[in-house]
């Protein structure tokens, strides 16, 4: 009989190797997974380092949104990626060049498109080589493998419907660019922001967005070092005003201050206002092109979007709806946004698959590179903001080959202004006041329109500038305000029971916060760099127009029949170098004053006379005129022998209706405003060689049409006369006439 112990020993002899092998196998699997997790983390960290490098570079350079400097920043970010990954992997014996072989692509998704950083074959044939300038420093050889950025790919999609054939380029927000032909086969090249519920009154200029009246804001101010400057941000570049007394401006390029030659207008910031006006106009244009009728099934060359399990999550054909259904178009769950994200996702996925498959032509190893299916939450992050997707494939990790990717997005950058990028500073005049998230509980009762302001989040980040005289770098915060502890530092006191920010803001009873937020969101979006704009023309709109070197003499009775001489002078002074004013009180106009005016009038380019009739007549009827003249008087009998043909004097009638106002004055309302204050009125007919600018009728039953405003060229000067007292739009009308006279 075999003893029990032998039986046990035999059993153990059998079991021990099984157990050992099993344990070793499980151990190896554990090590592999451990390594995989650690590689995932290393890849995440390197990706974060790269996107952080991009963030820092863009925040500190106001030109970084312009294409060539953007390429520079992205190449710098790619370098940080490889440096960082090499540092992380150094323990494992890899260096940055080895690792490049395992990184088939880095994808930088930006505002309206993306770059793929991957190897490609350099093409430099003899033909091209012969055309290179002799001092070209380029040293690449034909057929050499180079790692670099491939051409920028836009998030665009083509749509065909009837005669319409357009390509629409989407972006990370509601900005689109449309190129192609419209429904009548006419060419379009247009771009703008899509917004619902904007009303615009083109007469009063009033703009309402979601019921909130959007107006200009006070001029913006921020610190550089310890000095606060007024500034304006135009097309992605900030221009600072040197100080409040001079009109010299500077900007910061390549980390240094540089003076701008042409100054800007010193005025309230109307970028937010313009954003909404342009969105309103853009919508009208889209409707006229017929683009608002496009459906998702009109898209050409796109395929359904599937998730990692192969289920269709967005179908361009089946979910056929109006893409540009303006009802709530800017809200996250609108048709437009769903479609936009599907297009962006499709464009990235299809291009990336090709890029990764092509990598097999370059890799030296036997591993076949292919595009992994990205998880849904990763896509959500990619579509949300600027993002870096990195791939690391083919590294052996014991039991298997590592095939990983990392998606890191960034929501503090110059590229895009999202709804979360706007913070509200409680009081911009007080550096100790705090800035808040819009969703801070009760914020609507803490803000007010004059001192609170919405601020773009990167303006709350630390920036740097090189000092002009030494090599030191100054670090500064553009706004000294501190982050609120309960909504910014830690979000413990924020409102979050709503679907989206628009719903929240619309629901507030006190609309001050809503207005501040919408204005700031519009302002920051409108101030962004846009490739569609012609940069120099766009910036020129904000330049100060140099004053015209002309001298104007203003003579009149202030507030006489509703005129406004002071305002007229101020507004003329904005455009002309000299405007002198001689005034006399009502009823006190004396011959001395008139003589004084006539004595100095020759020194001026234009004399405007709005006193009584007799001074006007004296000035107008001099034998020679050495200046342009504008007279305003409702009594023409003796005013102007040069202009008046005939006149009828009546009492207690007044101009009744403007009949025509051709040419110069056609866009302005001239009210027949002489209400007949008991004086003598004169109906006049101008001479044949007088160009009539307005005609009127009178209220005494006379059906005849009489001349009201007209001018004549006499000896190289313009003599302009208004038979009407201008009670409405006085300043605007006289300014138009003055500009005309001084042309």
């Amino acid at each position: 009989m075999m003893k029990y112990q032998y039986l046990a020993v035999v059993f153990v002899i059998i079991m021990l190797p099984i157990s050992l092998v099993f344990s070793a196998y499980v151990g190896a699997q554990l090590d592999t997974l451990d390594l995989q997790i650690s590689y995932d983390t290393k890849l995440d960290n390197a990706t974060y380092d790269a996107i952080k490098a991009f963030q820092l570079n863009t925040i500190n350079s106001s030109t970084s949104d312009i294409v060539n400097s953007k390429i520079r920043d992205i190449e710098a970010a790619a370098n940080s990626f490889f440096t960082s990954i090499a540092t992380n992997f150094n323990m494992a014996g890899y260096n940055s060049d080895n690792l490049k072989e395992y990184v088939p692509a880095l994808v930088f998704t930006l505002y309206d498109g993306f770059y793929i950083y991957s190897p490609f074959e350099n093409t430099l044939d003899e033909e091209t080589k012969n055309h290179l300038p002799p001092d070209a420093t380029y040293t690449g050889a034909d057929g050499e493998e180079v790692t670099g950025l491939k051409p920028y790919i836009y998030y665009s999609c083509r749509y065909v419907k009837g005669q319409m054939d357009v390509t629409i380029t989407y972006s990370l927000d509601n900005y689109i660019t449309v190129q192609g032909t419209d429904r009548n086969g006419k060419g379009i090249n247009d771009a703008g922001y899509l917004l619902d519920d904007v009303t615009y009154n083109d007469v009063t200029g009033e703009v309402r967005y979601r019921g909130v009246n959007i107006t200009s804001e006070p001029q913006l101010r921020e610190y550089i070092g310890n000095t606060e400057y007024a500034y304006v941000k135009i097309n992605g570049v900030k221009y600072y005003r040197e100080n409040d007394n001079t009109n010299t401006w500077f900007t910061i390029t390549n980390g240094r201050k540089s003076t701008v030659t042409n100054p800007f207008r010193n005025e309230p910031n109307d970028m937010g206002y313009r954003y909404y006006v342009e969105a309103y106009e853009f919508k009208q244009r889209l409707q006229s092109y017929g683009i608002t009728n496009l459906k998702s099934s009109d898209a050409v060359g796109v395929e359904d979007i599937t998730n990692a399990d192969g289920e269709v999550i967005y179908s361009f054909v089946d979910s056929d709806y109006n893409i540009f259904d303006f009802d709530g178009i800017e809200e996250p769950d609108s048709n437009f946004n769903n479609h936009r994200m599907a297009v962006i996702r499709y464009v990235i996925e299809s291009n990336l698959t090709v890029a990764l498959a092509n990598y097999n032509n370059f890799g030296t190893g036997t591993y076949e590179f292919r595009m992994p299916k990205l998880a849904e939450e990763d896509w959500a992050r990619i579509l949300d903001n600027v993002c870096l997707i990195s791939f690391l494939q083919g590294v052996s990790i014991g039991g298997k080959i590592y095939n990983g990717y990392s998606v890191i997005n960034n929501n503090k950058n110059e590229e895009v202004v999202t709804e979360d990028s706007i913070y509200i500073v409680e009081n911009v005049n007080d550096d100790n006041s705090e800035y808040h998230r819009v969703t801070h509980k009760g914020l609507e009762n803490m803000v007010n329109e004059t001192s609170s302001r919405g601020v773009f989040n990167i303006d709350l980040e630390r920036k740097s500038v090189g000092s002009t005289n030494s090599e030191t770098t100054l670090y500064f915060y553009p706004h000294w305000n501190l982050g609120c502890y309960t909504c910014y530092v830690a979000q413990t006191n924020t409102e979050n029971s709503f679907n989206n920010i628009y719903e929240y803001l619309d629901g507030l009873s006190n609309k001050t916060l809503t207005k501040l937020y919408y204005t700031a969101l519009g302002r920051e979006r409108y101030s962004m760099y846009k490739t569609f704009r012609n940069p120099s023309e766009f910036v020129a709109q904000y330049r100060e127009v140099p004053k015209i070197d002309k001298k104007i003499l203003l003579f009149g009775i202030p507030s006489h029949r509703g005129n406004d001489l002071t305002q007229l002078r101020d507004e003329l002074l904005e455009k002309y170098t000299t405007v002198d004013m001689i005034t006399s009180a009502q009823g006190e106009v004396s011959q001395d004053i008139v003589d004084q005016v006539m004595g100095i009038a020759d020194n001026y380019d234009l004399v405007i006379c709005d006193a009584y009739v007799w001074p006007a007549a004296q000035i107008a009827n001099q034998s020679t005129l050495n200046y342009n003249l504008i007279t305003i008087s409702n009594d023409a009998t003796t005013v102007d022998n040069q202009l008046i043909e005939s006149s009828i004097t009546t009492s207690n009638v007044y101009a009744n209706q403007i009949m025509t106002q051709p040419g110069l004055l056609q866009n302005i309302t001239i009210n027949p405003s002489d209400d007949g204050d008991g004086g003598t009125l004169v109906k006049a007919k101008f001479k044949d060689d007088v160009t009539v600018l307005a005609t009127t009728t009178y209220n005494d039953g006379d059906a005849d049409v009489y001349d009201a405003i007209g001018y004549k060229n006499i000896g190289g000067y313009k003599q302009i006369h208004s038979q009407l007292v201008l009670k409405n739009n006085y300043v605007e009308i006289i300014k138009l006439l003055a500009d005309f006279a001084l042309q």
Partner: protein
Amino acid sequence: MGDSLMTIIAIVLAAVLMFVFPLMSMSDRSDDISQLTVKTATTEFVDNVRTTGRLSMDDYAAFEQEIAATGNTYDIEMEVKVLDENPGKKTTQASSTKIGENVYYSMYTSQILDTLSSDDGTTKVLALKEGDMFSTSVKNTNTTLSQQLKNFFYTVAGNDTYTIAAEHGGYVTANGSGN
């Protein structure tokens, strides 16, 4: 007499070798597998919070459930180091050639869970910002079979030691929003 004593010892020895040895070996493997699950789940959970900047009750509950599926009970400790840039801002203003120092303050598990759960039963979100740090460490609280067996035979492990543990942490890379 001596023979029967030997027989008893032999039977006991045989029982130990044939029964307990494979059991110990298997329970060790079982712990390894649990360890692996817990480690993977923890890394995924933390990385998800780090890259989105959001920690929701749903995420936390899913994580809890995933590690509980290993059949053990766990003690989950979370820590958020909240970045406070305000003191750094003051430093920079005082001397603009100097980069300000950042200050962190911590929120621990109970505070985090307090923020996540609300009285009305709705789930809430803890939103973090870029620059915050988030870490989680997980330890088993029950005594696993392998621990019990080891304690029985050679009493190396005390009652409060653990065999399954995982921790992971890092910078939050994006600003999360609370809604």
